[in-house]
């Protein structure tokens, strides 16, 4: 089971350039979504994209900048839900930029989608199914022996 989203991309460009594409609304919009971002801690902004009703996402993401270290780190909250005024998912997006081989390694972590309690439950549940499946297999094996 996947618990977090992690992506690492390498770009043959300086961190400053990547940083611009993460923090300037007009550049960010070119590859991500329409937005009104400002790289200032506490700034509240929104992303707007197409909806995905099958997972309960209306296409609007409500964000607040949590941490800014220019050219190195940017994090914001990422909250969304099925319709206006209903937030069902509260998560966090963290970007880090590291200079590497004359370019930049960009990592994305989208985390907190599952609360700790949910994770514990999910793990216990999977463990439960696995052991039940094993019990069943053992029983079937005994019958056929």
């Amino acid at each position, binding site marked *: *089971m*996947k*618990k977090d*989203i992690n*992506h690492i*991309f390498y*770009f*043959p*460009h300086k961190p400053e*350039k*990547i940083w611009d*594409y993460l923090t300037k609304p007009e550049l960010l919009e*070119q*590859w*991500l979504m329409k937005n009104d971002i400002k790289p200032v801690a506490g700034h509240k902004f929104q992303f707007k994209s197409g909806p*995905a009703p*099958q*997972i*309960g*996402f209306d296409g609007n993401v409500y964000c607040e900048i949590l941490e800014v270290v220019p050219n190195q780190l940017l994090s914001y909250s990422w909250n969304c839900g*099925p319709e206006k005024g209903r937030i*069902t*998912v509260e998560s966090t997006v963290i970007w880090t930029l590291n200079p590497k081989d004359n370019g930049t390694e*960009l990592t*994305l972590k*989208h985390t907190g*989608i*599952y609360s700790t*309690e*949910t994770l514990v*439950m*999910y793990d*216990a*549940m999977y463990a*439960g*199914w696995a052991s039940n499946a094993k019990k069943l297999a053992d029983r079937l094996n005994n019958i056929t022996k």
Partner: protein
Amino acid sequence: MTMQTLDSFQAIADPSRRQILNMLLKKSMTINSLAENFDMSRPAVSKHVKVLYNAGFISIQEIGRERHCILRQKGFNELQEWINYFDNFWNTKLKKLEKLLNEKK
């Protein structure tokens, strides 16, 4: 009374409902035996059970006069679909950024 169907995230956001799921992890239980573990009334517990049922986290089996609550995987799978959606979403967007930056080189 018609009850609003809550999605999986909302269904497990409530502490009482999480507690119910945690109890069901160990064994299946009747609504009455679940209710014994809570200070709230049996109808209140029954309402939480219904929310969990509607969101796909439990199934209910009638054995004789008793209704047994059993954990179900479906609710958890919906949470997983959400994470899969955004995993793909980011991958697609980052590839777009890559293309964009390379064009400008």
